[in-house]
């Protein structure tokens, strides 16, 4: 009996029909993935392939290129084919991990792919969303940087860049003096040296703690810096490590060379990763929303990256950003909505800046994890003492490497140890799933506000002998306009089109827009009255009204069609008559 029930349920799911009400808010899926841990890129690839195999109707896993080191760059195209190909629907681009060390951003994308696919057919609101929209998920834009972070010794902050060799210290040699994992713990930690002139002492009760002495006291230790030796014998330590391009500065909008913007790369799209993403996005003009996950800081960031580009955010677009981000602040506890140049720092050639300013796509960058979440009270930046409580009692000491003696070739005996690469920026594993879920939910909210067009009202009336009016109101029931204001201002993408086609071959004599349904006069379009271009599309939570004057006989059919790159096309017919 129980088996029969399960089979029945499975059949219902497979048929894609309305799922039976679920007794508890747990959504069963065909793929199990734990989100209380981190995955290497190879493991992420494996999960994506399992999901694609489990939901073949919904997921197309496409290799869009290869990284510099030859890793596959995957985009998971998620779409419900029964409502049309993915290119015919507004789509949201969601990526992560363009900075190799910002690891949980990939898990957040994987979670989104995982949850959305399993929710389809089971969770009505997400089913409805996926019937209307498509999604492009890219778990990691920088798999080389991610693998380097996992495989090699790093700090929480290192391995941000790609792996293109750059001569950081300008000696004509490339990557010849990286940090060195002297104590073999998989992290780059700190080096301390005994020094009678030092300004630090070791805590008598807790030798993990170095404390700065008062001015009138004598210290014993000096911090030498991060773990490493002088590999190239130039008298400096760790001055030319691997990699160099910050791939979040390699996008064409407002791009600046590396002397004006560190890490910019040689030219926009100079990296195989950014070029592959750029080509994919430009080949998909249906993308109407974007999210690019980073860490850390608990921010919902939007452009511009530089003050002098504020003019690329017309007021009506800025309002859309603010409305989405304000609700995001409520959904994402301890996150704040911010503007990149004003509230963070100036960025030239950033990814969301390209999406927003180059392509006119409403886009955010969420900075995952914030220190405020350690204690989840009103402590936004816990002091060191509190942090030891967290590290010892909640992380069981796993984010710290005890100090050990090391005989350093340049410095002699030193102590090596300290906080390891997991000690900050990445979400503590036991809190990861919640972080992923809240951000996933925020992007689904963002996606839900991609343009959704419908004919609100279509009416015909006699206007003369054999002349009829056909009046059409097209409504956008969501926040994001079908063409953003910057698209209209800067002539980005293709104009929306409203066409009127008398199927019996009659002529459209004139047409024009109206402000309200009760207007008696039109603002005429001077040319092509049957093919009306709308550079500004249909505004968010608003409508356009247009009246056509059609020659024909009563009973003849007229087809009205609205097409736009970032909304699903709509079409209706009306029969001429009173």
């Amino acid at each position, binding site marked *: 009996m129980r088996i029969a029930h399960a089979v029945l349920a499975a059949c219902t799911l497979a048929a894609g029909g309305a799922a039976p009400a679920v007794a508890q808010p747990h959504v069963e899926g065909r793929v199990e993935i734990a989100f209380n841990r981190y995955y290497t890129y190879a493991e992420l690839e494996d999960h994506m392939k399992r999901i694609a195999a489990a939901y073949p109707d919904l997921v197309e896993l496409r290799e869009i290129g290869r990284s510099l080191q030859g890793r596959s760059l995957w985009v998971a195209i998620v779409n419900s084919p029964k409502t049309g190909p993915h290119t015919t629907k507004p789509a949201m681009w969601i990526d992560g991990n363009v900075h190799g060390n910002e690891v949980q951003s990939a898990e957040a994308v994987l979670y989104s792919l995982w949850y959305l696919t399993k929710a389809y057919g089971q969770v009505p609101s997400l089913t409805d969303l996926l019937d209307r929209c498509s999604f492009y998920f890219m778990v990691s834009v920088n798999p080389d940087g991610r693998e380097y972070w996992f495989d090699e010794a790093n700090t929480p902050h290192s391995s941000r860049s790609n792996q293109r060799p750059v001569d950081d210290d300008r000696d004509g040699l490339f990557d010849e003096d990286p940090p060195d994992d002297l104590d073999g713990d998989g992290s780059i930690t700190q080096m301390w040296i005994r020094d009678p002139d030092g300004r630090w002492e070791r805590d008598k009760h807790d030798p993990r703690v170095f404390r700065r002495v008062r001015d009138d006291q004598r210290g014993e230790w000096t911090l030498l810096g991060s773990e490493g030796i002088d590999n190239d014998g130039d008298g400096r330590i760790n001055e030319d490590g691997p990699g160099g391009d910050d791939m979040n500065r390699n996008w064409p909008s407002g791009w600046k060379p590396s*002397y004006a913007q560190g890490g910019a790369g040689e030219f926009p799209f100079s990296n195989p990763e950014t070029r592959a993403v750029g080509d994919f996005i430009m080949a998909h003009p249906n993308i109407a929303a974007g999210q690019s996950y980073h860490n850390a800081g608990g921010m919902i960031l939007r452009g511009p990256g530089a003050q002098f580009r504020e003019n690329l955010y017309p007021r009506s677009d800025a309002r859309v950003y603010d409305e989405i981000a304000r609700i995001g602040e409520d959904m994402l506890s301890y996150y704040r909505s911010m503007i990149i140049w004003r509230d963070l720092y100036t960025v030239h050639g950033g990814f969301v800046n390209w999406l927003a300013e180059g392509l006119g796509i409403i886009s955010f960058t969420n900075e995952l994890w914030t220190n405020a979440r350690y204690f989840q009270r009103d402590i936004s930046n816990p002091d060191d003492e509190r942090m030891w409580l967290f590290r010892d009692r909640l992380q069981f000491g796993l984010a710290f490497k005890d100090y050990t003696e090391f005989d350093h070739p340049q410095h002699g005996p030193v102590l090596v140890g300290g906080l390891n690469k997991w000690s900050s920026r990445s979400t503590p594993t036991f809190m990861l799933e919640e972080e992923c879920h809240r951000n996933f939910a925020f992007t689904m909210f963002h996606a839900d506000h991609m343009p959704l067009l419908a004919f609100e009202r279509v009416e015909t009336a006699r206007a003369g002998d054999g002349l009829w009016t056909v009046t059409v109101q097209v409504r956008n029931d969501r926040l994001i306009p079908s063409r953003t204001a910057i698209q209209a201002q800067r002539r980005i993408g293709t104009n929306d089109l409203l066409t009127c086609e008398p199927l019996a071959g009659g002529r459209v004599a004139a047409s024009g827009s109206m402000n309200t349904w009760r207007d008696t006069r039109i603002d005429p379009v001077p040319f092509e009255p049957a093919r009306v271009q709308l550079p500004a599309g249909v505004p968010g939570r608003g409508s356009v009204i247009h009246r056509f004057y059609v020659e024909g006989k009563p009973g003849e059919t007229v087809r009205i069609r609205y097409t736009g790159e970032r909304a699903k096309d709509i079409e209706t017919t009306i029969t001429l008559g009173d």
Partner: protein
Amino acid sequence: MSVFLASAIAFSLAAHALAQDASERLVEVSSIGKSRSGRTLQLLRLAHPEPDSLGRTPDQRPALLIVAGLDARHEIGPRVARSLVDRLVTNHADLLRDRTVYIIPDLNPDNAAFFARAGAPKSDFGRTIVEYDADRDARVNEDPAEDLNADGLITMMRVKHPPPATGLTADLIPDPDDPRIMRKPDPAKGEAPTHALLIEGLDNDGDGRFNEDGPHGSAGGGVDLNMNFPALWPEHADGAGPYSLSEPESLALVRWMLTRDNIVCVLVFGPHDNLLNIPEAGRNAPDGREPLGIESDDKPYYEEIARLFKDTTGMTGAPKGPDAAGSFHQWAYAHFAVHAFTTPVWVRPDLVKAKEAEKPADADADAEKPADADQPDESPADAIRREFQAAGAPQFIIDFMVATPEERAELMAQAQDRTPEEQRERMAAVMALPEELRAKVMAVAQGQQVQPSAPPRAGGRQQGARPAQGAQGAASRARESDDAKWLKYSDEQRNREGFADWQPFDHPQLGPVEIGGFVPGFRANPPESEWTRLADEQTAFAAALLGKLPDLAVELHAVERLSTGLWRITVRGVNTRYFPTASAIARKARRLPPIVLDLRVEQDAVVAGQRITRWDNIDGSGGAAYAEWTVAAPDGSAITLDIRSAALGNRTLTITLTEDQR
């Protein structure tokens, strides 16, 4: 046949064979990539193929890159670029022993092929040929221009009193002085607009706009390669492309150049001029770093090269051309970070002042000087001599100040050989000068030109800043529009071939119109009779430029034994040519590392000095830099010094630690 004639023929044949052989040996033809339609983007490399005295292959020697054909309307560019090949190889082969010239004669071959097809009208369209929905109406290339009157040219249409239904607005009038010219009316003279001006063609898609989307000489469509480079890229502008380097041609050029760190100077033949219109120096874009023009410290070099250009070509004026934002030369300067020059090669003859013609202009300027000016007949050199003598400056300073740039370079080279005491003495003499004169010496030492001091003129106007006003003729000429000058040139010197006279035409959509205007390409390209002269001029300029590329000589200056097993080593680098080893923009952009001296000893063996020493720049004209190390090493042992320079070639010095090495 006389013996003389026979031998003359034999000689010329031999000479020809020799030249043929030379060009085969010195010219390597390859490509930097393909155009959008798959045409080869040709690269010609001019260099002696065998390694030079430093062991450098052609791609390791300081190189000049010449690029043409970015804007396909500029047909003379590719033509002259190609004709440089034989001329440089034949007449300047000696320069190609330790230097290289790269020539990319045509970066936009698709455009030339597009307009070369049978029946294609000549058109003012220099962009790439690419599917592009210029008017965003979901139809691609649907409204190109048409040669309505079948004269083989896309020119203009003028529509008198266009009816409102056309959607056109009259905003111009035919100039009463020459009704061929269309200009803005002057309401102060009671003029009201009568005509609308359009590109020749139909409104193919019926959207009320004419020729707004198509590659046939239309107002929209295609990508202007000179708007497609990342420096100050004019994002969203018509012709800039969807992103910078969106075109295979611009991308191929950039990618290839980034593999050629030995390119130290760029010369572009195209519509822009920055040789006679020196870019603004010292101002940055809003990001605060990227220059809008050039760096202040590069300006003296631009000024000197401008003089060189005037001397070699006789060209004294040129239109500045389109905005430099997104242009190739702006990228070559601001991002690739080398001195980059651009010239239209040919300008309207009234902009080329003959040498003799310049004299009277100077005489006018002199005559204009106020009566109280100091000794108006005195030459600048004399004035400087007098000024410095009056201040009691020693003779060596005066000699230095009045020297020609070449003589000065020689003097500066000599100065390097003086003892430190002598150098200090001379520096002290300079420092003892009055501040104003001292500044002049410093400026000259940095390669700038200085003027003798003179009381400020009435109104503070600088000498030569503007043409003399007052003479009726000059004033009326100054008011002449550019169009009028072109027409005058066409009428008087080109047999009226530059302008298709307005002809009535019955336009199917607009009714009666007139079709006419400047012949496409006329204002950018010279008549065939000028080709040889222009090729000779640009060859002379390119050769002169080539002579100024920086080069580096590194020599062991001193090896001194301080004690047993303790040695002081001094190495000297000299830049033997004019340009600095690193321009100001190179030092700012840091695209390439500086000159690196890597002393191959254990770090512990270096008692004083930096094992890795960097020379950020060595000024030209004999500028020198020193590096000094004290090392602990056994007497008689040998030390290797690796010298790395991405632009000027790597090399190695072996230093033997024995007494009295110089």
